């Protein structure tokens, strides 16, 4: 089981029929004792956390609890912040991605990210999607690129809405569409993991519902980690949930178990709305 999963880097190849039960046993990413410091100030303390393939892992917790910071360790976006330091081991398919000899550029082509605020490039819709494949040299000719753009937009559920106006600027779309465009942009470089940092916090409920549907759909192909403020959202979309508080991982488990019978007192207080 492990060997087949380890060699299987392209989630598209395994298809939708992959056995979820199996996928949940095999951790795609395994974090051990991750600490993050911002200019000497510790923001994340000794977090050890497995992230399973073909499932959604939700990170919840009150503001400033380090969940976003932790998420940014998974594609080494913390490297771009001056004074940020990450210690600990993060294994992805057995390789420590936190080691200095791993190039973050290559890592980020395997671990895509979607941000809190939709941030499409100020270019055409087409170029937004095509940018990643172009810089990574994933395509040889225009047709291949067209195919990737279409496939990515289809997977992000945006194709029907934008197929006639691919040359229009990405910023001309509505907020929800922009966020799906950003998801399509992340998908286009064929990642295995998609990180989402509160992807719905700037969207209205209808757009949020569409994104949530989309996440549920994407779960069949990708390993997804989502940071969310909304506990309902975590309950709706995720299979596993991790509760962070003051930089510590308090509790981690199946979503059902976290929301129905949390082991920790703090988790229970938080999900029942007693603080946060």
């Amino acid at each position: 089981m492990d060997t087949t999963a380890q060699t299987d880097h392209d989630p598209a190849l395994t298809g939708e029929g992959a056995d979820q039960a199996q996928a949940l046993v095999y951790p795609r990413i395994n974090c051990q004792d991750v600490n993050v410091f911002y200019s000497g100030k510790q923001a994340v303390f000794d977090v050890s956390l497995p992230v399973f393939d073909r499932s959604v892992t939700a990170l919840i917790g009150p503001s400033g609890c380090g969940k976003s910071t932790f998420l940014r360790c998974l594609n080494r976006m913390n490297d771009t912040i001056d004074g940020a330091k990450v210690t600990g081991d993060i294994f992805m398919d057995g390789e420590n991605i936190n080691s200095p000899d791993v190039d973050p550029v290559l890592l980020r082509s395997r671990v895509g990210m979607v941000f809190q605020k939709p941030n499409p490039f100020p270019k055409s819709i087409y170029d937004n999607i095509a940018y990643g494949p172009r810089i990574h040299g994933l395509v040889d000719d225009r047709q291949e690129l067209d195919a990737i753009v279409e496939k990515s937009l289809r997977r992000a559920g945006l194709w029907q809405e934008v197929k006639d106006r691919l040359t229009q600027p990405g910023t001309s779309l509505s907020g929800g569409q922009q966020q799906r465009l950003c998801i399509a942009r992340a998908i286009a470089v064929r990642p295995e993991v998609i990180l989402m940092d509160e992807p719905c916090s700037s969207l209205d409920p209808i757009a949020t519902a569409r994104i949530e549907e989309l996440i549920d759909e994407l779960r069949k192909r990708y390993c997804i980690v989502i940071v969310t403020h909304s506990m309902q959202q975590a309950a709706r979309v995720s299979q596993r949930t991790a509760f962070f508080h003051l930089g510590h991982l308090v509790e981690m488990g199946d979503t059902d178990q976290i929301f129905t019978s949390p082991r920790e007192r703090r988790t229970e207080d938080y999900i029942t709305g007693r603080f946060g």
Partner: protein
Amino acid sequence: MSSPVETPLRSEKALKHLRRRRAADTRFRVYGLVALGFALFSLVFLICAIAWKASSAVTYHVVKTDIVLEADRIVPDGNASPEEITRNIEGFYTLVRDDLFAKFANLEDTPAVRKDFSALIDRLAVLPLARRVAKNPTLIDQTVSIQVPVSDDVDLFLKRSSPRSIPFRLGEGAQISLGQGTDEMVLRHPALESVLSSLTALGSQQGAPSVLVIADSAVARLTDLQDQTAGFEILAGDLADFQGKPLKGLIVAVPESNRTISDLQIAWALALKSEGIIRRVPHTSLLTSTDSTYPELAGSLAAIVGSLLTMLVTGMVAIPMGIFAAIFLEEFAPKNRLTQLIEVNINNLAAVPSIVFGLLGATLLLGTFGLPRSAPLVGGLVLALLILPVVIISARAALRAVPPSIRSGALAVGASRMQAVFHHVLPLAFPGMLTGAILGMARALGETAPLLLIGMVAFVAEVPSSTTDEATALPVLIYSWASNAERAWEPMTAAVIVILLALLVTMNVIVVMLRRKFERRW
């Protein structure tokens, strides 16, 4: 008695407080309007003052006539080589002068009068004619139409700007009779009384003002005036020219001994003007000639070209250097003590007086590296150093204005830092960078002090053809023309200021257009 009900919305205390706040609002708006009005007024005043001064330099007076280029005058020894022709300026000059002189039939032909007459046109004014003939020797012995600027004194007088002349009108009906000498006449006219009264009003502390009477191309000068009878000395034309013509007159308040132009010269100039030989034409030579010691021959072409060459060097050095320095500092350099120090120093550098950069250029570029003096290359480099801090600061501000989410978005799809900057940040920051760069260039275009120190204040009679030729720049030309003594330089200087301002406005318009273009592209 029905007093209004006291509600929270109309209580006396709240209303009073509100009135005070409203008054503060109004006061603030008034201050703003006053400041804005003052700035606008100053700007309009400045532009009007300069334009008004420059307006008299828009046209100038030239002698326009047809002349036979006699071979024995311009190539006396028969050698028609271009060098010989251009060397024989004197021949051309006397030819032109004598042609004009011949138009005054009853003029005594003495060396003194000829010398006086020569002051109408400066010798060097015929140089373009000589060059034209040298280029095309077949013109010799042909009749050609020539256009030669008159000397600045004549030009200024004809423009009524210096010495000032007060016109009056006698009209027809004067009784004219011959005086004692052949060139004297006696004139009776009732209007002469008013001339007498205005003469007394002028007073005669420094000397007697000149009164001239003009009938078409004939001019006479007042010698004595009693009530309605006046004695005149005829300066140009003869008695018959005055008979039955409407008479005009001019009072030149400055006495003859105190001015650079004599009554006789005035008379000649007026006569030639009424015959249509001296004409007022657009002053194109201001843009097409180079500098000269004679105001009527001087132009700003060499300075315009010099300024453009200097700007070329400045732009090619300062813009890429400044933009790349800004990109490095803003996007790549680690934020530590060293980069902080560099940043502080760049900001300080922007406040260093420009003359210090001139000294630096003089010692370093001219002294140590031995670059040529007075060259646009050196001027451009010095000005590049001068505006570099400004370019860097504005480029950094433009980079900082790009939302960080664009960078994160690019990095998250696996772009390298370089790719994120060059593919995404730079296109967005470019219009802002461009604005800063061109505003810096505009500042450099107006700089004088550093150019003075590296010797770009030279008198340049040739249009520079490369960045290592001797050159001067527009602001330096303004500086040197403004320090000349002759009155004629004043409107010329104002005209060059207008040219410089026009260049600056053009640059700013280009900025706005480029901004629009690049912003629309996305």
